[in-house]
């Protein structure tokens, strides 16, 4: 229980993952066998001792409301503090605001009511086992007005367009923010996490709500001259999901036992919505290798280098390789899947053969029967 309000910013590119994000926001994209992406941000907040968490609700909210409900599964259903949903403003005859400043402005009352003094905002499309306590301590000791968290990383070529780069002076102060960096500028990757005092945060929101900034990033850019904006290098593992390639790649990384342990066993638990599932059941003919299997699965066929979400059925003779099968996928006898992503409730008929490429997996839309 630390003196920080957590904000999870779910404003993002609506169609980042194509069909997978057609009917759901990035925040509720299934990941890693039993999770939704937001689980990592939420669990990170709780494991960092932040228990007053506001979630900026995107417009596509059905799956989010269904997933979060009371926040109980994250132990955020409390008498005081806990989870607060911060929906976008609605004004008659006007399109609801699509960026986070409008959304935050509509919910200023949440900040005023909160007892905590500091604000930590993180995005919703990140994967990791987060502990933000050192970053918060660093901010409070540094005397900076705002601290931006960044990771040092060699961006993949497909990353650059979804990357924000920081130019950092020797004293840690941010000199420039590159929203479309070259690969040299992209080295210090700002991934959307920031810390500042609540009063500064709300005054910035009020100021830029009336101003010209289209989003928070632009607003920060405009403030570089006015405020002391410094940085904190986040040292941990960080997966950023912003396109289909990064989604597939981050999932497949989990098949490495070392990564699996780092993400799931090193810090606090990653919590998610709880549903009653029976233990995964392996039949006499099952042949599973280098895979992740969730509760409720029944496996009679062969599975290799794949991620099986809850209640996936693999029939006899079926072969699944390099694939991500979301909840309730059924793969009938002798079907073959290679480098395929099946969204929820997909049924693959007997004998069907579907192949994608490792760098361009085939996506089967939710509910498809083929």
């Amino acid at each position: 229980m630390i003196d920080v309000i957590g904000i999870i910013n779910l404003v993002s590119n609506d169609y980042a993952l194509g069909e997978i994000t057609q009917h759901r926001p990035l925040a509720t994209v299934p990941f890693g066998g039993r999770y939704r992406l937001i689980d990592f941000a939420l669990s990170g907040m709780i494991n960092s001792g932040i228990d007053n968490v506001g979630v900026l609700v995107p417009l596509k909210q059905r799956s989010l409301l269904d997933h979060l409900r009371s926040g109980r599964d994250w132990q955020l259903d409390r008498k005081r503090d806990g989870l607060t949903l911060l929906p976008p403003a609605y004004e008659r005859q006007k399109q609801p605001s699509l960026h986070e400043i409008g959304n935050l402005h509509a919910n200023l009352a949440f900040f005023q009511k909160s007892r905590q003094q500091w604000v930590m905002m993180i995005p919703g499309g990140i994967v990791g086992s987060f502990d933000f306590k050192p970053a918060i301590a660093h901010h409070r000791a540094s005397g900076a007005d705002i601290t931006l968290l960044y990771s040092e990383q060699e961006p993949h070529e497909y990353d650059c367009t979804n990357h924000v780069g920081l130019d950092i002076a020797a004293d840690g102060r941010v000199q420039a923010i590159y929203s479309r960096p070259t690969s040299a500028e992209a080295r210090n990757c700002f991934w959307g996490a920031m810390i500042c005092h609540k009063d500064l945060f709300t005054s910035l929101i009020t100021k830029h709500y009336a101003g010209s900034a289209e989003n928070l990033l632009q607003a920060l850019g405009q403030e570089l001259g006015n405020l002391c904006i410094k940085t904190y290098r986040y040292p941990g593992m960080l997966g950023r999901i912003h396109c289909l390639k990064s989604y597939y790649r981050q999932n497949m990384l989990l098949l490495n036992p070392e990564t699996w342990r780092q993400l799931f066993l090193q810090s606090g638990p990653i919590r998610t919505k709880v549903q009653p599932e029976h233990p995964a059941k392996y039949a006499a003919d099952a042949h599973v290798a280098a895979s992740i299997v969730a509760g409720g699965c029944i496996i009679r066929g062969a599975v290799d280098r794949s991620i099986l979400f809850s209640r996936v059925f693999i029939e006899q003779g079926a072969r699944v390789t390099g694939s991500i099968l979301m909840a309730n996928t059924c793969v009938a006898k002798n079907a073959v899947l290679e480098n395929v992503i099946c969204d929820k409730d997909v049924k693959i008929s007997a004998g069907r053969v579907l192949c994608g490429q490792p760098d361009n997996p085939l996506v089967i839309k939710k509910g498809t029967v083929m």
Partner: protein
Amino acid sequence: MGQQEFIALILAGGQGSRLSHLTKNLAKPAIPFGGRYRIIDFTLSNCYNSQVATIGILTQYQPFELHSHIAASRLYEGANSSGGIFILPPYTTDAGGDWYKGTADAVYRNIEFIQRYNPRYVLILSGDHVYKMDYRTIIAHHKQKKAEATIAVIEVPWAEASRFGVMTADADLCIREFAEKPAQPKSNLASMGIYVFNWPVLKEFLLADAQDLKSDHDFGKNIIPAMLQAGRELYAYPFQGYWMDVGTIESLWQANMDLLGDNALFDLSDPLWPIYSVDPAQPPHLVAGRAATRQSLICEGCQVYGQVEHSVIFPGVYVAPGAMIKNSVVMPNSLIGANAKITGCIIGCGANIANDCEIGADGGEKITVVGEYAHIAAGAKII
């Protein structure tokens, strides 16, 4: 307070001494079972799926984990005059205190609790049986027969009948005779320890039994025979399906094995009758490249590098490369070291089996039990 048609009482105070070290620090109903469950989850899920509104759970022996598990499962939200789950441990009054002396005595000491709900029927259940039953069916049967008490019965092999309370019933299922563990059974209809009583009738017999200094205060030994002798209307309710009293190491092991195979005797995956439990909050398990897993149940948080065959692996178990687990039950957070061989075993929670151990034997009649948090040194052989 409004009347409820029926409430359920679950007897969960027994020690389960035949389960040896597994119940040293644990009430029998709290024993882990079937990967993700504790034994009491089956009775509790039956209650929830049957829409039983009010449940009292009578506890006494080492109840801490049992209480914690029930609270964490949050099967019922709230507990108040309209229902919920109530834990009923022994307590003292201004007249002093007594432990529950038997199953009937435990209910007798909670007459006031039952009176709060003023039910027409009381359903008496056991916390240590594995089965699926819609209790609305037995209540309907009870009403249809206009019975004063109804006892669920199951056909057992004649050879085993003498281990049970055995019923002789006429064609109408009216019970004529009842014998507790008879040497020469006259019937193979065994009592499942599941009773429906008209509450006023049960109360009358509980009050009388409490006065009887020679009574064991037990439903099977005392209450049922007394009712029969008094000429009350007792009926049998024949149950079809899987039922197991997991009172011994062998039956605990067997009931776990009965979950395996393509046509498992007991099916955990029925979406219409979910078995609820406490989520272990662990990630989906990882099966490594060289692992082999067949005819098994494997739970969240496991890391399998070795071979698992015809076994039930609970959450958070680590199976090192080269390890081989067969016909075994491995409880949560155990560690099975490299090249260890585990056959026909029950491995308790948090046990640490070092590399190259060899534990248990195939085809043996005896199940090898490794107690919780036991450490078995590298290379040990226990058969």
